């Protein structure tokens, strides 16, 4: 075997150093909250020591010298000659940053560590770490005695490495048996597997068409089906990384800014083992960084402001969890909250009419370009971009962002994104005899076309959606396809970054997970078309691009949509009461059901649910089990015992998965029982529709 060249050695060192520097960042942040942990100190020492040795082998003397100095500093900690203080952590973190810069400038391939092709660490055991740590309250000591290479000043908040790529913990992974794989190889695998799955479907069709064999009765074909399905699942999983791969960098940002501003902040992470597609997490990382910086800078008050009113120590919490096919990442703080009056004043100055806006609607204004940048950006938290950019980036990852804030109590930003971009969840509709798929993340809701809600303004037909007028067009006219006369079908409300627009279709067909294929480069650019997908039966349907579709509709010659004929098939919207004490779950369910065209009410526990039912009965109750005051079992029992409510279907959606709980649910009179961990949007809607006796 030929010896490695110096360049190859340095490239290898670059890869090793990247993992070690990530590890050092983690260890030092942990050490700050556990200053007496000798094991942590030893781990830090080992990392610097290994870096020193490897860099010497790679001929990178400056790196080796710097690692040696840092190792010496840690040796002082190990021997008790020096205590772990925020200042010492500052110096060590700054040293790690400096190492990164020096290594980037001296890697063998002429590039830097950051240019190493993105790769992923596949490991059997995902790192699981729930972080709770505290950031020091003392102001940083600037201008201390300088040593030759180790910066004595604390790290400047804006200087630490960008979050661009989620990193895997190579050291942890190595313990579980891991191998580095280039991302493009995984992408290639996904593509090939898609082709294999398509070929598999064709073989099934050929068996039936040419040989008259039902593929489902063929053991070999079924075995192949199972293998292809398992393989698809496993390959998809290789692209998944835990959210924890970026939380250390967020922690570092919180810590550094808090130190600079003299704030005492507790950083808390829950659900760091929640996995999602690396590409999605990558797209979110800058937005998350923006939100946590915002929380430190604008959210958490200074110690003087908090004194007397709140705990001196502020808390910033990142909570990730999977719900169905989506991941929800909430960034919350217990700071001052957003002053909606201030938002109104600034919006008014920008010419926005805020007279009729509710508190929640006013809060949404901070995502508007101009307003977000004037009101909520500083050099620290904004880096020149506003929340409008955060929103745009999240929408580019097919996600959405929601905000809840209470003046004086704090703010929570909630990001909801699909677990993977490999498949696109779509609402399939029919218009003019054609089927079209609409990406679900752009669908606000669908509802029956209610003539009483239609009005005319500015030469266009409008419908009322959430008490806001929304322009409505017919999909067939927008797409320029022939129709079969006035439609009586439902309306689907779509959104782009800034606007909502309703489209009348002939009917809703259902939901579908779509593997989106781009169209040929030989075709002209079609802004309203995102691509196409092949159905299992070999037919093709076109996936529309809602922003392009909205743009096209707005360019159309203004024309009032003909009023629909009354049709007995479309009655009033069905009402569903969602009962859950967890805000996130409650709002997600509300969102899913509203988009499916239901009129949704919510309650936070069984007692409130009963009170609301007494005021206004609904067509179905969807309830959690574990809730304060009155749980889901008791609520179901009470509904069944009630003289006028006893016929309302009750569907339980719970994280309790035991057979005993399911049986108890049925015993008290529930009509269905869905387990949250396996919960899927389509399952929920199918169960709801079944209980309501609805047809798709």
């Amino acid at each position, binding site marked *: 075997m030929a010896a490695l060249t110096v360049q190859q050695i340095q490239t290898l060192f670059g890869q090793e150093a990247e993992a070690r520097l990530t590890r050092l960042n983690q260890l030092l942040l942990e050490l700050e909250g556990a200053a007496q942990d000798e094991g942590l100190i030893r781990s830090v020492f080992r990392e610097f020591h290994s870096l020193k040795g490897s860099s010497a082998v790679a001929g990178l003397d400056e790196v080796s010298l710097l690692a040696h100095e840092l190792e010496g500093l840690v040796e002082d900690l190990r021997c008790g000659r020096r205590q772990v203080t925020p200042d010492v952590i500052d110096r060590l973190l700054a040293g790690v940053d400096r190492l990164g810069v020096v290594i980037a400038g001296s890697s063998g391939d002429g590039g830097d560590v950051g240019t190493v092709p993105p790769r992923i660490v596949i490991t059997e055991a995902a790192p699981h770490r729930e972080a709770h740590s505290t950031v020091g309250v003392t102001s940083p000591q600037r201008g201390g005695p300088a040593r030759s290479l180790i910066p004595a000043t604390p790290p400047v908040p804006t200087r630490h490495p960008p979050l661009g790529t989620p990193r895997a913990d190579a050291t942890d992974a190595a313990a579980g048996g891991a191998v580095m794989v280039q991302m493009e190889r995984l992408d290639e695998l996904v593509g090939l597997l898609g082709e294999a799955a398509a070929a598999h479907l064709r073989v099934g069709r050929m068996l039936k068409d040419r040989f008259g064999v039902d593929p489902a009765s063929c053991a070999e074909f079924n075995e192949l089906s199972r293998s292809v399905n398992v393989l698809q699942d496993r390959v998809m999983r290789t692209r998944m990384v835990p959210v924890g791969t970026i939380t250390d960098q967020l922690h570092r940002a919180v810590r550094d800014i808090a130190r600079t501003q003299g704030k005492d902040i507790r950083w808390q992470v829950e659900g760091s083992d929640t996995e999602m597609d690396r590409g999605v997490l990558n797209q979110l990382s800058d937005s998350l960084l923006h939100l946590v910086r915002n929380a430190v800078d604008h959210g958490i008050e200074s110690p003087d402001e908090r004194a007397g009113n709140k705990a001196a120590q502020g808390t910033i919490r990142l909570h990730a969890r999977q719900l169905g096919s989506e991941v929800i990442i909430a960034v919350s703080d217990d700071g001052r909250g957003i002053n909606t009056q201030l938002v109104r004043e600034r919006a008014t100055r920008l010419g926005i009419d805020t007279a009729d806006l509710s508190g929640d609607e006013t809060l949404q204004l901070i995502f508007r370009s101009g307003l977000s940048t004037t009101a909520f950006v500083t050099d620290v938290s904004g880096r020149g971009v506003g929340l409008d950019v955060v929103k745009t980036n999240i929408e580019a990852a097919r996600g959405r962002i929601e905000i809840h804030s209470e003046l004086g109590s704090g703010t929570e930003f909630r990001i909801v994104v699909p677990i993977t971009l490999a498949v696109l969840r779509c609402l399939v509709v029919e218009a003019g005899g054609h089927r079209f798929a609409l990406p679900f993340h752009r669908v606000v809701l669908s509802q029956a076309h209610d003539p009483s809600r239609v009005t005319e303004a500015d030469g266009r037909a409008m419908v009322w959606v959430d008490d806001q007028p929304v322009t409505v067009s017919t999909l067939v*006219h927008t*797409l320029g396809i022939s129709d079969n006369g006035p439609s009586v079908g439902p309306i689907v409300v779509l959104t782009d970054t800034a606007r909502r627009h309703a489209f009348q279709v002939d009917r809703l067909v259902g939901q579908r997970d779509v593997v989106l294929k781009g*169209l*040929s480069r*030989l075709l*002209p650019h079609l802004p309203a078309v995102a691509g196409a997908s092949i159905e299992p039966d070999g037919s*093709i349907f*076109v996936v529309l691009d809602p922003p392009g579709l909205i743009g096209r509709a707005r360019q159309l010659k203004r024309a009032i949509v003909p009023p629909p004929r009354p049709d007995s098939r479309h009655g009033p919207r069905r009402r569903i009461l969602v009962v859950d004490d967890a805000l996130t779950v409650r709002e997600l369910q509300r969102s899913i059901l509203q988009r499916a065209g239901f009129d949704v009410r919510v309650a936070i526990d069984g007692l409130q649910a009963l009170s609301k039912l007494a005021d206004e009965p609904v067509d179905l109750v969807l309830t959690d089990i574990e809730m304060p005051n009155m749980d889901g079992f008791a609520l179901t029992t009470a509904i069944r015992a009630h003289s006028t409510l006893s016929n309302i279907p009750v569907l339980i959606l719970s994280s309790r998965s035991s057979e005993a709980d399911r049986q108890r649910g049925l015993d008290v009179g529930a009509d269905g029982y869905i387990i949250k961990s396996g919960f899927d949007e389509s399952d929920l809607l199918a169960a709801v529709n079944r209980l309501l006796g609805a047809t798709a």
Partner: protein
Amino acid sequence: MEAVLLPVGAEVYAVPMESVREVVADPLITTLATAPRLVLGLFNLRGQIVPLFDTAALLGIGAVGAVNFAVVLQTPHGLAALAATGLPQRVLLETMTGVSELPGTIGAYRLGRRVAVLLDLAALLTPGSPGGRDRDVALPEGPG
């Protein structure tokens, strides 16, 4: 040169044999909404989505009407198909007998008592503007 003939109504066009991947009879076409007239739609060729172009519209001589066959071409930009109204046949084109006037064509060849016009695929099928004309996506008129 070896070529494949594409009957388009009463006329016959030809494409070089080396560009032809296969011929599909009676393809199941999915209309591509908002596309210009020269795009007849998309069809599924064993898992690949192939655009089908109206040969007559590409040449600016009307429309093919019924699509009985799709001649699938391998281009530097991926697969594409041209519509033919009659069965495409493999022939040997010998001496060019004259120039052709239509843009996107190379010349005319004699085939017994008929004339076949050889298509210039590189000129007809260019990324983003097939046919070099009619590329703009027309907005439909509203009903009012």
